[in-house]
């Protein structure tokens, strides 16, 4: 229940202004004519709703179409991944990381592997790093394609969704070739990657990049610059800079508000430092081009344009990848030195943080997962009131939430 800040009876009598709207009953009570009573409507958006991108529930209080209060309720997909992490061996936990942000499983693998490697202090072979970067960026494209498509779907444009899936299908086929899985890859391992690429795979990735750049122009024309789309998203769900920082938003959410921050560039990990030195990619920022800085359109713009930056990164890696080992020599049953490490990487949705604590044994003491969607979702409570019901959908869509990650 959202507690109403108005007493219903007071609100009722306040709104009845004309005489004859009430009458005195034989019992002496005053009865208000019910057909002039107005009250806020509480409505559950979810857990089963087409626009919540999973099983999430938002309790919305509305006055007509106007939202006066919103309260997200989570936990429908809670699997206690963190508890599992304390009960299985280090490497056994890796497949569970696929399951939180299932649209960017490669990035999740990467985050967890890097956190464990921070404790291990192991040197990762260069080819493995290259493959990791390629896979992570390909997966970022796939994830942003979903964000692109489903956002169109939320706003009633069905077709871009299937266009996005066309390219995503290709991306998944590429991953299937390299690791046999289409969604939950577990390909990036602690110490490197699972195996080397099949023959011709890198050429195929290059072909994908060529085609994708062409198709990307279609996305921009078809949806992002569509007049109705701009009208639906510009000036909606504005997150000012202070609010974005206060709520700990990361990733495209914070860049949409114009804050120039990308973990890949600003806390360089893996090969991204080299990439930045080579000028291989730029950080895309929202600029308020179609409305206010930090509105839904800006966030969408950041995601769409980031795909091209990812293509640039992949191209750079394809140009400089060399043969070599793909995984460091590690024992089968891993014993991780005692200590604790927090590693945050740039997931498609923001900072994916893994806080791992080891006591030197085969099993972790604590695996804490900081899911970007979880933090990004918290801002809904602040920006939803005052918008229309249709905007609620636009706002939820612009946070690009994956429920598997908020609930873990």
């Amino acid at each position, binding site marked *: 229940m959202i507690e109403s800040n108005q007493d219903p009876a007071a609100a009722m009598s306040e709104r009845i202004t004309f005489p004859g709207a009430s009458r005195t009953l034989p019992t002496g009570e005053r009865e208000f004519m019910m057909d002039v009573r107005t009250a806020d409507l509480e409505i559950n958006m979810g857990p089963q709703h087409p626009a919540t991108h999973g099983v999430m529930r938002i309790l919305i209080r509305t006055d007509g179409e106007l939202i006066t209060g919103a309260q997200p309720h989570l936990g429908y997909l809670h699997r206690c991944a963190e508890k599992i992490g304390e009960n299985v061996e280090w490497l056994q936990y890796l497949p569970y990381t696929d399951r939180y942000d299932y649209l960017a499983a490669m990035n999740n693998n990467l985050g967890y592997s890097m956190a464990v490697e921070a404790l291990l202090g192991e040197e990762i072979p260069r080819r493995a790093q290259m493959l990791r970067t390629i896979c992570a960026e390909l997966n970022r494209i796939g994830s942003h394609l979903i964000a692109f498509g489903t956002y169109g779907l939320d706003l009633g444009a069905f077709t871009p969704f299937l266009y996005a899936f066309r390219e995503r299908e290709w991306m998944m086929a590429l991953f299937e070739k390299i690791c046999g899985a289409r969604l939950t890859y577990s390909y990036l391992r602690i110490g490197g990657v699972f195996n080397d690429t099949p023959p011709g795979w890198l050429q195929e990735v290059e072909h994908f990049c060529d085609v994708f750049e062409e198709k990307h122009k279609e996305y921009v024309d078809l949806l992002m610059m569509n007049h109705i789309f701009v009208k639906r998203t510009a000036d909606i769900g504005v997150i000012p800079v202070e609010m974005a*920082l206060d709520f700990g938003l990361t990733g495209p959410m914070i860049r949409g508000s114009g804050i120039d*921050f990308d973990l890949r560039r600003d806390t360089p990990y893996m090969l991204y430092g080299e990439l930045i030195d080579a000028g291989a990619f730029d950080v895309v920022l929202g600029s308020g081009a179609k409305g206010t800085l930090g509105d839904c359109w800006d966030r969408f713009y950041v995601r769409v344009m980031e795909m091209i930056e990812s293509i640039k990164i992949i191209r750079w890696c394809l140009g400089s990848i060399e043969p070599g080992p793909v995984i460091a020599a590690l024992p089968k049953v891993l014993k991780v*030195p005692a200590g604790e490490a*927090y590693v945050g990487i740039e997931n498609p949705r923001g900072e994916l*943080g893994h806080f791992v604590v080891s006591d030197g044994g085969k099993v972790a003491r604590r695996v804490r997962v900081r899911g970007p969607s979880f933090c990004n979702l918290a801002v809904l409570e602040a920006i939803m009131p005052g918008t229309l019901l249709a905007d609620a959908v636009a706002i939820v869509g612009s946070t690009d939430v994956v429920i598997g990650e908020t609930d873990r």
Partner: protein
Amino acid sequence: MEFEGIIQRLREIGAPGLVSTDEPRAADPEDKKDKGRAGDAFVLVEPSAIVGFLAACRDDAELAFDLLVDLSATDPDAADEQFWIDYQLLSTTRRHRLAIKALVAKEGAEIPTATAVYRAAGWHERECAEMFGITFVGHPDPRNILLPDDWVGHPLRKDYEFPTEYHGISCE
């Protein structure tokens, strides 16, 4: 700024509640039992002063930790007397990180809420509270977030016993 610089700056501005620092070190070759410590450096902060400490980190122009990235707790061991509460700060302008740790006693664990400094702490603290049974004093919305409202026990504690039944549904 590197860790040493941050610590120095924290001492300069007199950040309240700063107890000590802990940095990774190599194993002592003399002592066979000492395996050293890997990973990140962190600062240990007095739990009661955590709000002031966070505010100092955020408001200082040189530190400028404008983002609370993560807040979580750890139950190191069932035999241990204390929970760790870990804060991860990040500065988007200075591009550095800081890990903060506060130790609270398991018995009646409580710590002041950080929501007044970072609203991002709100949901993290709710999660921590339900998973560990830590009270965040002054939290504006202290409901469960991931678990059902009537859930018994705190699952991420090491001494947690998995329930055999929930609302008549057998879990065995």
